[in-house]
C-alpha cells in the first residue's frame, strides 16, 4: 500500500516535478531542462570509449566567436547572475586560441601517457666509454632544460583562456604533464648511469626569452609548438641513432611521440588563424621571420648541426660514436642530414598551416632554402 501511495504522488514529468517542489516547499527553481536531456549517445559503446568530441552537442558544442565568460562557467552551462568574476582571461576570442581536432589531440594525449619509472627499461643501461657517457649527460642536461621551458610557457596561457575554449586549454594541461615527464626522464638519464648533469646552456633563446616573451597566444604557439617543439622532435628522432641501449631508445621514441602531438597542436592552431582571421596573416609572417632567423643561426639549440654549443658537440659525439676526429666528422654528417630533414618538415608544416607562400615569394629566410636545395 505504501508503495502504491508513493507511486501516485511521485512526479513523472519535469513539469510535475516542478509543481511537486512548489507544493511541498522544495526550492527547485535551479532545476531546468536542457536541450540535450533524453538524448542518447550512439557512440557510447564505441571501442574507444566515450570521447569529449562525442559528448559535446547542442549548446555544449557551440563555441562562441567571442566570449564574456569570465566566471569560470563551463561552456554551455547556464549562468548564475551572482557568480564572481574569477578569471581575467585575456583570451576571449575563438580565433586567438582555437584549432580543429583539439579535443581529439587531448584525448590522445590522455590515452598515450607513459611513465619514466616503469616504461623505460633502465636495467639495460650499461657502462659506456667515458666520452660517450659524458656526451649522454650533456645532452640530457640540455634536454632537461629545454623541457622545463616547454612546460613553463604553456602554463601561463592556461589561466588566460576562457573556459569556453576548454579544448585547447586542456590540451595545454596535458602538454605540461608531457613536458614534466620529459624533464624527469632526461634528469634520470643524466644521473642513472654514474654520470650527472653537466653544463647549463648559456643561450638566451633556449632559456625561454623569445618564447616566454611572446605577447600573444598565436605568437607563443608558433614559437613554442612549431619552432621549438618541431626542432626538439628532430633531436628526439635522431635519438635512436644516439642511443646505446634499449633504455635510451625507449626514452627518445616515447618522447618523440609526445612531441609530435605538441607540434600538431601548433600547426592546427596556426592553420585555424590563417583560415579565419586573414587580417593577422602579416603579423604571423613577422613571427615566422623572427623564428626563421633563429632557425638558420641555430645558436639556441635549434640547429643540431651548428658547431659551438655543448649540446651539439654531445650530439655529434653520440652520432659518430666517439670524440676522435673521424667519429666527430661522421657525427657531423649525420647531424647535417637530419638538419636538412628538420628544415623540410618545418617548411611542410608552415605550408599545411596555410602560410607557405613565404617560401615562394622570397620572404622566408634565405638559409632555409639552402638546406632544402642541398
Amino acid at each position: 500500500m505504501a508503495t502504491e501511495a508513493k507511486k501516485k504522488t511521485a512526479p513523472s514529468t519535469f513539469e510535475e516535478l516542478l509543481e511537486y517542489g512548489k507544493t511541498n516547499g522544495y526550492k527547485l527553481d535551479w532545476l531546468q531542462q536542457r536541450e540535450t536531456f533524453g538524448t542518447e549517445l550512439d557512440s557510447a559503446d564505441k571501442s574507444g570509449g566515450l570521447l569529449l568530441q562525442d559528448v559535446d552537442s547542442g549548446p555544449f558544442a557551440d563555441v562562441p566567436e567571442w566570449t564574456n565568460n569570465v566566471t569560470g562557467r563551463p561552456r554551455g552551462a547556464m549562468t548564475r547572475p551572482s557568480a564572481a568574476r574569477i578569471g581575467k582571461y585575456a583570451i576571449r576570442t575563438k580565433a586567438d586560441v582555437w584549432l580543429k581536432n583539439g579535443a581529439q589531440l587531448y584525448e590522445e594525449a590522455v590515452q598515450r601517457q607513459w611513465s619514466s619509472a616503469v616504461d623505460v627499461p633502465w636495467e639495460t643501461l650499461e657502462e659506456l666509454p667515458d666520452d660517450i657517457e659524458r656526451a649522454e649527460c650533456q645532452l640530457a642536461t640540455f634536454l632537461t632544460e629545454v623541457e622545463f621551458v616547454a612546460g613553463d610557457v604553456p602554463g601561463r596561457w592556461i589561466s588566460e583562456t576562457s573556459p569556453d575554449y576548454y579544448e585547447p586549454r586542456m590540451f595545454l594541461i596535458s602538454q605540461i604533464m608531457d613536458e614534466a615527464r620529459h624533464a624527469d626522464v632526461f634528469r634520470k638519464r643524466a644521473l642513472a648511469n654514474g654520470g650527472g648533469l653537466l653544463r647549463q646552456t648559456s643561450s638566451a633563446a633556449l632559456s625561454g626569452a623569445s618564447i616566454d616573451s611572446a605577447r600573444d597566444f598565436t605568437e607563443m604557439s608558433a614559437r613554442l609548438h612549431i619552432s621549438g617543439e618541431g626542432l626538439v622532435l628532430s633531436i628526439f628522432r635522431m635519438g635512436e641513432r644516439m642511443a646505446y641501449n634499449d633504455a635510451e631508445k625507449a626514452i627518445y621514441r616515447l618522447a618523440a611521440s609526445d612531441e609530435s602531438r605538441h607540434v600538431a597542436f601548433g600547426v592546427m592552431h596556426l592553420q585555424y588563424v590563417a583560415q579565419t582571421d586573414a587580417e593577422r596573416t602579416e603579423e604571423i609572417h613577422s613571427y615566422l621571420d623572427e623564428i626563421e632567423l633563429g632557425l638558420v643561426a641555430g645558436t639556441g639549440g635549434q640547429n643540431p648541426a651548428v658547431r659551438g654549443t655543448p649540446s651539439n658537440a654531445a650530439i655529434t659525439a653520440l652520432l659518430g660514436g666517439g670524440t676522435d676526429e673521424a667519429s666527430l666528422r661522421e657525427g657531423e654528417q649525420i647531424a647535417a642530414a637530419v638538419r636538412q630533414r628538420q628544415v623540410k618538415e618545418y617548411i611542410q608544416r608552415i605550408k599545411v598551416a596555410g602560410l607557405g607562400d613565404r617560401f615562394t615569394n622570397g620572404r622566408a629566410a634565405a638559409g632555409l632554402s639552402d638546406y632544402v636545395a642541398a
Partner: protein
Amino acid sequence: MAAKASTAKRIKFPSVGWYEEVASITVADQQYQKYGRLNAIVAFKSEDSIIQVNFDVLNIHEIKEIEEDEMRDCDFIIELEADQWKDMLKDIKKNNGASLDWTLNTLDLKYDEPIHRNELEDGFKADLFFRYIPSLQVFFDNASQITTRF
C-alpha cells in the same frame, strides 16, 4: 624447436594474410596496449601491392588490398621498395625486433624522401606517423614471431 620451425606456416609478404597474422599477435601484445589508442587508417605500399590497415583504438582490422587511387582516403602511407621491406623484415626476424638501421624512424630519416606521406599532402594526417611510431614499431617487430616468405 627445430621441428616446430620447419612446420611453421610460412606467410607471404606482402599479403592481407600476412598483415592479419601480425595484427592478431599485436592486439594481444601488452606493450602495444600500453602505448595507448591509435586512430589511423594506414596504407602499406610495396611496389604494386597496397594493403590498407585500420588501427582503430586498440583493435587492428579492416585489412584489405586497395587500389592506388584509394590511398587518398588513408591517413598516411608507408612506402618502401620490395627489397627494403624484405631487408627490414629479415632484420626484424634475425634480431627479434628491428635493429637500429631498420626501425621505421631510421628508415624515414635515412632516404632522401621520408617513407611516410599523405597522398593529399595533409600534414596533420601525415604527422600521425610520428605520433604513432612506438605502436607501429611494435606492430612490425611482432613480425619476428611469424615465418615470412617473399
